């Protein structure tokens, strides 16, 4: 019995990585901004959405990791094989556009977090871009994964800074389970935003590819599923602490809109240097981490889907399209942050529109694929699970389309 338990724990540690990293990168600069905004403006009220968000996340992520483990193929590979090249091409184009804006947002996060430490963006952004490029191109797969896992643990910054702010724990606990719906446009927008940023198309592609790359098979799938669930829960815990930090620090004194995640960090200042420093450091870590993962995952997914050679273990000459795409995403993502008048906010809104337009397709493809007996054998969804998955997908699509509508309205207004 003990021996079996030990075996399962050993297998669990051997599959750790994909689920955790994906869930953590989900809390990137854009995510942190959304959660900070929720806390700063509405305090503890939006906390209840975190539990449904976790469930939605688990349902979608679980299907991807299962497909990766059973078929040994990435999501873009499967879409290509089952739905043809033209569909794949359209999906990949949309993915590059959304991911590029995500990458921009993350370089913006790097810039603004380091400006809190009085480092000019003209120094921080080029250095960060170079560091990201070198890490991925020169590092080995296992080395890079270790760096990523260390980055995952640094999210603990948010937990500490949330504690340092001394929020009202009782209220936080109550509102985590008590749904409150205010019929106020700003509140509804925030709720939709929280759900919308939590499930993004790139995650599905990244997770499945990472599970394949890790060599997880049907045999280790049980442990891999646990890893995915633990990752999703950890992501929500971090989100929880970001919200209560902002609720405790900003909302209790003066509920307001914040201008960005860095602005939220400034709001924590009255609660001591460490709360502020940790929040800012967490933002820097999250942004840098996402700026590593997103370009890599985009280049990888696109090349896999379109059949170009990919992977950092290939030489430049062999996989030139992969390296060019990867380099270009970083160069553009970092470059625009240095332009004086670049309309970053508009870009992020635009990205949410494309994101929202793409997500329904990706989710529907996923469910169709995961139910193909030819691919999945005995591992297709059960009827009950399908009901859950379709519900989750419909809810997500509905909320995402709402977010698209809001973003389009803001784009027009702004």
């Amino acid at each position, binding site marked *: 019995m003990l021996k079996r338990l030990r075996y399962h724990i050993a297998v669990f540690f051997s599959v750790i990585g994909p689920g955790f990293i994906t869930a953590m990168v989900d809390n990137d600069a854009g995510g942190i901004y959304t959660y900070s905004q929720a806390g700063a403006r509405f305090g503890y009220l939006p906390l209840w959405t975190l539990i449904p968000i976790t469930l939605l996340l688990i349902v979608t992520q679980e299907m991807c990791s299962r497909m990766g483990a059973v078929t*040994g193929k990435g999501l873009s*590979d499967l879409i*290509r094989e089952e739905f043809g*090249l*033209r569909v794949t*091409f359209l999906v990949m184009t949309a993915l590059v556009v959304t991911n590029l804006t995500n990458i921009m947002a993350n370089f913006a996060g790097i810039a603004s977090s380091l400006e809190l430490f009085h480092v000019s963006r003209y120094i921080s952004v080029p250095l960060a871009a170079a560091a990201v490029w070198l890490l991925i191109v020169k590092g080995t797969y296992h080395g890079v994964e270790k760096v990523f896992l260390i980055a995952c643990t640094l999210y603990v910054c948010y937990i500490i800074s949330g504690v340092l702010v001394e929020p009202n724990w009782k209220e936080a606990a109550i509102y985590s389970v008590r749904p409150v719906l205010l019929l106020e446009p700003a509140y509804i927008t925030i709720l939709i935003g929280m759900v919308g940023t939590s499930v993004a198309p790139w995650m599905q592609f990244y997770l499945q590819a990472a599970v394949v790359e890790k060599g997880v098979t049907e045999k280790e799938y049980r442990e891999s599923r646990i890893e995915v669930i633990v990752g999703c829960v950890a992501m929500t815990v971090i989100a929880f602490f970001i919200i209560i930090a902002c609720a405790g620090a900003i909302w209790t004194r003066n509920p307001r809109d914040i201008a960005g995640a860095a602005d939220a960090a400034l709001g924590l200042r009255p609660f001591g240097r460490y709360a502020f420093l940790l929040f800012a450091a967490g933002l820097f870590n999250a942004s840098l981490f996402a700026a590593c993962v997103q370009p890599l995952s985009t280049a990888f997914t696109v090349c896999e889907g*379109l*059949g*170009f050679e990919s992977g950092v273990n290939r030489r430049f000459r062999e996989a030139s*399209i992969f390296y060019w795409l990867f380099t270009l995403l970083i160069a553009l993502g970092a470059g625009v942050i240095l332009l004086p008048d670049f309309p970053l906010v508009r870009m992020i809104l635009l990205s949410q529109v494309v994101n929202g337009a793409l997500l329904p397709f990706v989710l529907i493809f996923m469910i169709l694929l995961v139910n193909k007996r030819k691919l999945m054998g005995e591992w297709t969804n059960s009827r009950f699970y399908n009901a859950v998955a379709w519900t989750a997908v419909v809810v997500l699509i509905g909320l995402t389309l709402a977010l698209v509508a809001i973003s389009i309205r803001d784009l027009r207004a702004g």
Partner: protein
Amino acid sequence: MAENLLYLTELVGLPVFDLKRRRIGRVKDAALVPLIDPVRVDRYLVGGGWAWLTIRHDQVQSISLDGIYLRDEQLTPYHSDEYMLRLARDLLDQQIIDVSGRKVVRVSDVTFEVRQEDGHDVLGVLEVDIGLRSVFRRVVQGALPRRAVRRLQRPIPPNSIRWEFCNIIEPDPQRRLRLNISGAMLERIHPADLADIVEELSPEDREAIFETIDSEVAAEALSEVEPDIQASILESLETEKAAEIVEEMSPDEAADVLAELKEETSEEILDEMDAEPKTEVRELLEFEEDTAGGLMNTEYVVLHEQAAAGDAIEALKGSEEPPEGLNTLFLIDAGGRLAGVVPLARLLLSSGATPLKELAVEAPVQVSVDEKQDRVTELFDKYNLLTLPVVDDEGKLAGVITADDVITVLRRK
């Protein structure tokens, strides 16, 4: 661009005309029947009205970008047939192995050559297209006229693989026979490259490859595959086939692979093996993986310490198959204890009557079977070794560690 080429993207959707030049439908797919001809398109599948029709290659008069003109309009309804490789359905967007480039590629398009056979046009598969150019063709297919696409694609460099170097991966063994897919081409790839290819594939396709290729090649390739993939491949194969492959591996590598498996599975495989390799592998399995015993192999040349150089040469000539990379001979005394180490070069330069003992190196290095592997790599570095004898508690020679084993250990760190 030569006029006698046609792409599958162009063929699909091409109108088909009967003898009176009336359009009867459009091409939906084209099929090879590899058992009849591995290159020539045997049938065209045409959709018109409510059902698909089959056109045999000898019913066609001419094929061009304007359409296919028939010379015989006695067409039969389409029915699915296991001997048929349907290009759009079975090949397009699927992974195949490029034997000349030694990699896995995904098919974006197929290039045909239009040629004359008995006065009418037939299509022969020339190349499989994988690059940016074929992706472009696929994306704009149908949206722009065929001739415009040909002009627009010109600046993009082509990237294609000749059809004779394409190996299709088919998981179903019956269909493999019907489509005449053999492992012969894969067996010509260097086993280390084949291992890289296999690592990139899905579990199902890996199994397909190991089922088709010869056990000897499979053994060499399997030794080069990453340990956890090795295990999953062996587990997926029939026990008999797995045992055949493991038998062909060198005992130390076989033991390493079996150690990765569940005990149940490895026992089943061992049971299927021949007696001699089985005992050798079983003995090696006793040792912990990260010790000298786990690293060593049992294929080496050993001679009695009293023997002379001439005896050694005779012994080597007489042996069936000397170990690969042989560079050292080992001397043992009557009790099987290690008595000396003779570099091969010294043997070659000596006269036949010289006792081997005189050729042995002074102060040979040796380790015991339970020495830690870190210590082993250290010794290889310190004494610049190519081989290192491993002895048991009584000083008996138990096995030999070679430099390639050490390189593998160092690389895995």
